[in-house]
């Protein structure tokens, strides 16, 4: 039975790819309708996928509570918060209701900002301790970064107008060379890996090789 589903999955990969590719090049009403439906079905499945993380998290933390692991009180807190948000969201019928907005602004906004902002402090201590110009390459990186910091901060132009000007030259150079090449590389690489997945060479995204 599992072989049937695996073969079906491989067939789905190719059929959907062919339909959507042909739809891009051939202007046909029936093809367009089918392609539109396929697109919209993927959106619906994507909506279901939003809950996958929650499902996995509930299973893991419920197990932690049941087995009374050292971190079980935190698991209770996590699941409790999740239930509160789900309950409030469904009860008020909208994530923009004043009640939901209030609790979101109280909990998610400050915590999320602080968690991401922490990195600024770690980068600061790394700037002193770890970022060494030990070679030409690292020297180039640091020199470029310094001039670009003068470009990004308004005070650069106040200290000396030449500093942001040099920064702008470095910025334009990196944009026209390195960044461009990186984007070309991303495009070709994504196409290659995508093709490998569709023709079945890459099995990991579907859950591993047979």
């Amino acid at each position, binding site marked *: 039975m599992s072989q049937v589903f695996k073969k079906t999955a491989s067939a789905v990969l190719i059929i959907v790819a062919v339909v959507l590719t042909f739809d891009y090049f051939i202007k046909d009403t029936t093809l367009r309708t089918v392609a*539109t439906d396929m697109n919209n079905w993927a959106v619906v499945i994507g909506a279901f996928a939003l809950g996958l993380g929650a499902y996995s998290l509930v299973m893991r933390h419920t197990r932690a509570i049941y087995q009374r692991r050292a971190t079980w009180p935190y698991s209770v807190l996590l699941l409790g918060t999740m239930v509160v948000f789900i309950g409030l969201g469904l009860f008020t019928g909208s994530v923009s209701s004043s009640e939901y907005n209030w609790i979101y602004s109280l909990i998610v906004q400050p915590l999320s900002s602080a968690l991401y902002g922490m990195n600024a402090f770690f980068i600061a201590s790394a700037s002193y301790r770890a970022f060494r110009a030990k070679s030409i390459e690292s020297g180039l990186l640091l020199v470029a970064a310094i001039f670009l910091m003068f470009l990004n901060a308004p005070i650069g132009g106040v200290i000396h107008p030449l500093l942001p000007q040099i920064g702008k030259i470095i910025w334009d150079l990196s944009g026209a060379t390195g960044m461009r090449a990186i984007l070309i590389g991303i495009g070709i690489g994504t196409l290659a890996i995508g093709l490998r997945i569709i023709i079945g060479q890459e099995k990991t995204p579907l859950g591993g090789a047979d």
Partner: protein
Amino acid sequence: MTVTEMLGRNYKQIIYLALFASLAIPMINPIGLPIPIDKTTADIYNKIETLQPGDVVVLGSNIGAAIYAEVYPQYVAIMEHVLRKDGVKLLLVDHGTEGPIFTERALQELNVYNRKTYGVDFVHLGFIAGGEAAIAGLCRDLHALLQVDYKGNSISSLPMLDDINGAQDFTIVIDFTASADSQFWLNQAYATYGTAIAFGLTAVKVPDAYAYYTAGQIFGIVESLKGAAGYEILINRPGIAAKGMDAQSIAHLLYIALVLLGNLAYYMGGRKE
């Protein structure tokens, strides 16, 4: 323990305190440094200035709490600018889970529900799951993808959407995000329909977008808090973005000093770690 030993052992805490002070002091006592306006930001301003009645502006949002400080001021400033253009239609769509919250917050902050008529001048479609498939579906056929808007109103009951079927009807799209989602609009709206695209991004994503800008694939970028501050000045509505730039300046000087001091200590110490 000598002072040098204490500094050597506790350097992290000293650096953290120095960073905190370099940010907090200018925020409490602003210096008033001039804020330069980037060309990438000015290009968006100029493009919106050329909009005519009947044009459709799509603001895509993947704003989340983590990037709120950087991107939300951009979003508000650009939304305000579009609202000042009489007759221009505003279509708001979210492709991040936290997008609807901040979109509604911006609409409340700018008092849009009282200034304009919902369904005629602006529509909020809400969050659409599915990532690139969602953007593709929106660009292909909005009416086939969605039945209701964010408020639960039937799409067919909104007069503004009678003439808007997909990306071929969008005049410009400005997407506010911190992630690879910005690529979705390029792939689906620009590549297929030639829609004019611009981005409002966090600083980390700007280098990637700059390559698209120099290749002429997007017409502008609002770069992080700096861009938001510049845009606030352009529309003559200084907000929280402009206030934060002094702190940015002093903190940047601190980072530069730390890099230089660290390397000086390394080389003077005989390259010993």
